[in-house]
């Protein structure tokens, strides 16, 4: 994910990350403004926990409210929505590759849990092809090899002894 914390001093921020301009306050009698292309976006993600079949999970623009999410789905995509819940999540730590201390965090993000109505269900598709059993075996073999290598490196000074006495 793109880190805006580093770019905080600079002027350029990607368009989809920018703050949404405030909507003018409506006073009775004034002409009503309409927004045809809002700066909202929603990204469907695979849920981390086991979820019921009628629920869908999104990562959304952090300024979007529950009502925004509901209207976005109902009016543009014609999907019936029963309930929406949102919560903020902290971004992951970015550590120094060799030193190990935390440099920055990734940006915080908003997650929206959507409950569908009218008995509609959704299952997140399996995008990646499953690995074949041969490939899984090879992976396991590499893992075991690496573990042995590490053990051997640790005992480099006792290489002259037979392995039983190391």
């Amino acid at each position, binding site marked *: 994910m793109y880190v805006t914390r580093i770019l905080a001093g600079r002027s350029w921020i990607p368009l989809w990350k920018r703050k949404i301009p405030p909507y003018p306050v409506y006073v009775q009698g004034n002409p009503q403004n309409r927004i045809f292309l809002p700066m909202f976006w929603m990204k469907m993600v695979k849920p981390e926990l086991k979820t019921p079949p009628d629920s869908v999970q999104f990562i959304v623009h952090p300024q979007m409210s529950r009502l925004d999410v509901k209207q976005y789905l109902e009016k543009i995509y014609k999907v019936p929505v029963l309930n929406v*819940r949102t919560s903020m999540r*902290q971004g992951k730590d970015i550590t120094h590759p060799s030193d*190990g201390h935390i440099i920055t965090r990734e940006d915080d993000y908003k997650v929206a849990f959507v409950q569908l109505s009218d008995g509609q269900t959704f299952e997140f598709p399996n995008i990646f092809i499953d690995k074949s059993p041969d490939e899984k075996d090879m992976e396991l073999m590499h893992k075991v090899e690496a573990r042995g290598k590490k053990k051997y490196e640790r005992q480099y000074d006792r290489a002259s002894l037979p392995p039983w006495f190391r």
Partner: protein
Amino acid sequence: MAASLVRSRFIKFPPNFLYYSCYFTNRRHYSAQVQLQEEVKEVEYPPIKPRWPPGQVWGELSEKNAWKIYDETQNIMTMPTVEERIKHLTSNENKIALLRTRINPKNLQYFQDRTKTNLVDGLPDVYSSMEKDGVLDLDAVVTRLRPIIIDGIEMEHDKLERSRLFWAKSAKDMIATRLLLKQTLLPIRGYLSGQNAHMQRSRFDENVRVVAFWDKYGEKHKRIENDYNRNARRRRKKDEDDKPVMFNEPYLYRFQADEMVPIQIRVENPLPEFVPLNNELCLGDYPHCDYSPIVMGFRRVKEKQACVPGFNLGDPCEFGLLSILFSNDSALMYLKKCYGDLQYKEALIAYGLMTSFIWTVSQAHYQGFNTFLELTYPFTTQTIAADGQNFSFFAYQLNTLHLWKSDEANPRRNLCWASLDNKLYDKVENGKVKGFNDDVFKTLLKFVSLKPVDRGVDLRPYLPKGKPLPVDCKEYIPKTVEKIIVEEKIIYDESRSN
């Protein structure tokens, strides 16, 4: 300053210091010489245990945790009072899942899974048999009470004007229903208490807080940390071994729920059991909805754990007869407005189910049972959710508290009967009630006049027999502290001084 900076730059260890630490340690030296040790004659071994603790079927629990639970049960058995037991169980300050009714839609199945209850349509056979046995002469009571109650309803609707008293609409509705229900309930209670001794000695409470906690078995969930304190997570990893069993297992959750019950009636003896424990309903399958509480819209928080049935220890009336809820509660009406009529009906059932479950669990705690000590007899209560006109009746039977066991190990389930949409009258026109329904009124009478029974079993099997019960206690205020002054002569050792 500069020197310290330089030094720190040189002495700073890399993050993977532990990995390289083997290069800096001293080498080992080997020799063929063997040091002779003195032989220890008395060899001490740990006591021999069987693999699984005796007395129960443990299901999917690991052996280590089964032994931990076995030790805790015996530890709790030694505690003589209920206060100590509850204090011990609620002493740990870990995160618990708070369940709240009337907040989210589509939660009924989840509540059923967490409390392990089967829903049954209609009412149990106890009420239908009440007419046949001739315990109550219902027709005579109905003819006597009908005009009084109709008069009360008319008075509340038309003759009294209280629109100016309360500004908020929700508060106005709630107070109106409270008065309307009192107008129907109190004459019944007053009339029946002349015939029945248990009604005379019953207690009538309003606005009672009811809280209970329990432990439930479920599938393994990954725990997502949503808190912003990273250091707390590191600390938690360190303390994981010291935690009690219920929080160490990844598939055991502690739940808590609390409700504000508008009206409650309590009696001295427990109500009769609706169905014996051998019945098929108690062993049947129940709807599974095994998800993490975070997915269903609840939170895992550090909340103070409590067990409150709505009365103090030592009250003579320790068993529930009836609890009355408002079906036009402000939270419920908001839910109806947002999600529709079908979701409202589900939420109403969940509301009735959860309140009766909480109350029975907290009553069981006051009789000496808890999550470790299983019930020896079922607890039963009745609840009514009403707005004065529409009545929905619930009857609940608590069969188990061992919810932390897997389903195969503990086949018992709890039971809840529900019958909705019973109209007491059709409407009020020109200050007069029209279409008064006698059948609904009769069920209401049966609910209030259900007789508690001496079941013939020991009600407090896990509490010590010799000590007086809190019910029998007469001196509630402890005696004043007496100061005892002891005077002793100080004897000096004279030989030293010389």
